[in-house]
């Protein structure tokens, strides 16, 4: 039982190799038994871990803990492991039929699953770097999988920027090794407050935060994300936005929240970084006309919200940030998957050209509506829960509450645009009458998960973290009235301002960033982070 995490890492990688090497056109059926084994063994492991949390520390090879490769499983990364296994099962299901003849696609996906699980479980800073780099390589291959012109450009920029971020992270790790003499995260966490050479640790902190910031696409460093997520195949977009971006947020929780946070006060900067990228993401999302670009820019804004929660600034708001990671995976995954079906049916990505999805694809449209309600924070759905938990810690600060409402209003405005394509009369010829069951089933499961988390978040959090979260009174009519008020305001703003597409709005849409500019911003970001750390 204690060695089950090794199975999580090696089973997908072995299956991936078998899929790649064996010459049979049906060999990728193997991914389903693989996911089944992973789910069952994960459940067994969690039950065993709940009885005895000490089995979470794994030291390989009988070496001393300071030089051995170690795994550490606790409440934080076990939830992420569960999310990863769940999300990959959904993606395998969804992509299975449409990519049936593409063995390599499943090879990359299974490989990515293994590497991602490794990233979550390892307790070694250098192994984290290796996993980050391999994830960047695999994601590049998945983005450029169809070899479209834009996909190749986006993939190249993503690869170079992501490897820059990894290198900055590596310099930080190197400095930490120089100070501590080992790379074990758990041991480093214990000795961090008593370190004497704080200058080098501060520099390392700044470098690591910059690396994480680029991987998470916070405000000035987001240039690669909408390009990459917008041009990838829909199942890959869902995977990237739903899961792979969360690797950086997991690192933020691990390294900022648990390791550096105690001796160095930096949470205010992270908080405002999150706030600015939430606002900027919403502004850019509002003016887009491409369905997948809208969803991709919203990832930037939602990641900003998670940064706010995970800055550990105030009270229990980190619980909100943590829950928002899971919720965002659920509803953004649902939105991208449904958008994939709609784009395939209408053969266009332009929001204004698609109309009447409820008439042509009723079930897909209802699922899309659930995703929209969830991301705009409608009560009863999961997005509402985590957003209110985030806001609750700041309820006394008027200005921050105003900014939160502004972000939510922007989300509603841009999703009014998406929601409008569900209604009306279809005037384009639709290629497919009905999405296949292998696509509808996983989407329905995700939609049900969205409702379940929205209603039963309290027992879930209490079970995982032993903290009783702030309770939301769903019987209170005011929350529904408040939501209706914001929706009507947002819809009117959309209808009378955004739809006209005035010149300044078009100007914002046409803003692009060249690669040297993105690198310049990366260095400016790095210098300012280090400066903040030294001045604080």
């Amino acid at each position: 039982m204690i060695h089950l995490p090794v199975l999580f890492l090696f089973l997908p990688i072995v299956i991936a190799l078998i899929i790649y090497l064996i010459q049979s056109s049906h060999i990728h059926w193997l991914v389903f038994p693989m996911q089944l084994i992973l789910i069952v063994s994960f459940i067994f492991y969690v039950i065993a871990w709940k009885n005895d949390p000490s089995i979470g520390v794994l030291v390989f090879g009988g070496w001393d803990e300071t030089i051995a490769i170690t795994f550490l499983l606790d409440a934080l990364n076990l939830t992420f492991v569960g999310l990863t296994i769940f999300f990959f099962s959904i993606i395998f299901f969804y992509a299975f039929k449409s990519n049936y003849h593409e063995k390599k696609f499943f090879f990359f996906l299974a490989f990515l699953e293994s590497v991602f699980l490794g990233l979550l479980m390892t307790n070694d800073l250098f192994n984290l770097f290796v996993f980050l780099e391999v994830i960047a390589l695999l994601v590049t291959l998945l983005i450029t999988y169809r070899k479209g012109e834009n996909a190749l450009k986006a993939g190249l920029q993503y690869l170079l920027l992501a490897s820059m971020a990894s290198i900055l992270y590596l310099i930080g790790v190197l400095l930490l090794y120089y100070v501590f003499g080992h790379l074990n995260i758990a041991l480093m966490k214990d000795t961090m407050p008593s370190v004497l050479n704080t200058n080098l640790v501060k520099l390392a902190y700044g470098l690591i935060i910059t690396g994480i910031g680029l991987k998470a696409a916070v405000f000035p460093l987001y240039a690669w994300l909408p390009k990459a997520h917008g041009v990838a195949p829909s199942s890959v977009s869902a995977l990237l936005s739903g899961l792979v971006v969360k690797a950086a947020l997991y690192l933020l929780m691990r390294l900022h929240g648990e390791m550096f946070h105690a001796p160095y006060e930096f949470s205010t900067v992270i908080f405002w970084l999150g706030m600015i990228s939430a606002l900027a993401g919403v502004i850019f999302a509002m003016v887009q006309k491409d369905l997948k670009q809208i969803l991709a820019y919203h990832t930037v804004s939602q990641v900003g919200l998670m940064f706010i929660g995970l800055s550990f600034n105030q009270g229990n708001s980190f619980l909100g940030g943590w829950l928002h990671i899971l919720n965002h995976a659920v509803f953004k995954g649902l939105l991208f998957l449904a958008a994939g079906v709609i784009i395939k049916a209408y053969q266009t990505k332009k929001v204004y050209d698609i109309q009447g999805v409820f008439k042509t694809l009723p079930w897909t449209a209802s699922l899309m509506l659930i995703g929209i309600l969830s991301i705009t924070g409608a009560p009863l759905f999961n997005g509402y829960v985590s957003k209110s938990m985030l806001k609750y810690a700041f309820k006394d600060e008027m200005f921050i509450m105003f900014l939160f409402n502004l972000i939510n209003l922007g989300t509603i405005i841009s999703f009014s645009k998406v929601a409008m394509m569900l209604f009306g009369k279809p005037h384009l010829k639709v290629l497919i009458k009905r999405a296949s069951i292998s696509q509808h089933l996983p989407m329905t499961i995700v939609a049900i998960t969205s409702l379940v988390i929205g209603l039963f978040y309290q027992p879930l959090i209490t079970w995982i973290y032993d903290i009783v979260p702030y309770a939301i009174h769903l019987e209170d009519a005011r929350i529904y009235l408040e939501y209706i008020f914001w929706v009507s305001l947002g819809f009117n703003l959309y209808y009378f301002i955004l739809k006209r597409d005035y010149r300044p709005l078009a100007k914002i849409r046409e803003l692009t960033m060249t690669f040297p500019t993105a690198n310049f911003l990366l260095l400016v970001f790095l210098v300012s982070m280090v400066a903040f750390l030294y001045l604080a």
Partner: protein
Amino acid sequence: MEPLLSIAVILIGMYGLIASETIIKSVFSATMIESGVILLFLNLGALNGGVIPISDGVNLVIVDPIPQALMITTIVIGSTVTSLALILSIKVFHNNGSIHWKDITK
């Protein structure tokens, strides 16, 4: 002295990333930064002036072997990233007829 030289290599690479206008130069700049990091880490591990960590029974002062083990991994990963980036730039060149970032990010 040597750590400062490796830091200089890293900084030159960073300048290259900001200033270079073509894909190939950007890829090379990224490779330079990585080489600088590798040199820096190896230097920091060998500050005690020891010999390579293979014991011959005479020299008892050896350098820290962990940086060497880590950096060989970094070299492998770096070469993979460079080769993938170069392949992608060839494909981008075939599609666009140009390797200038200005023509590509439109």
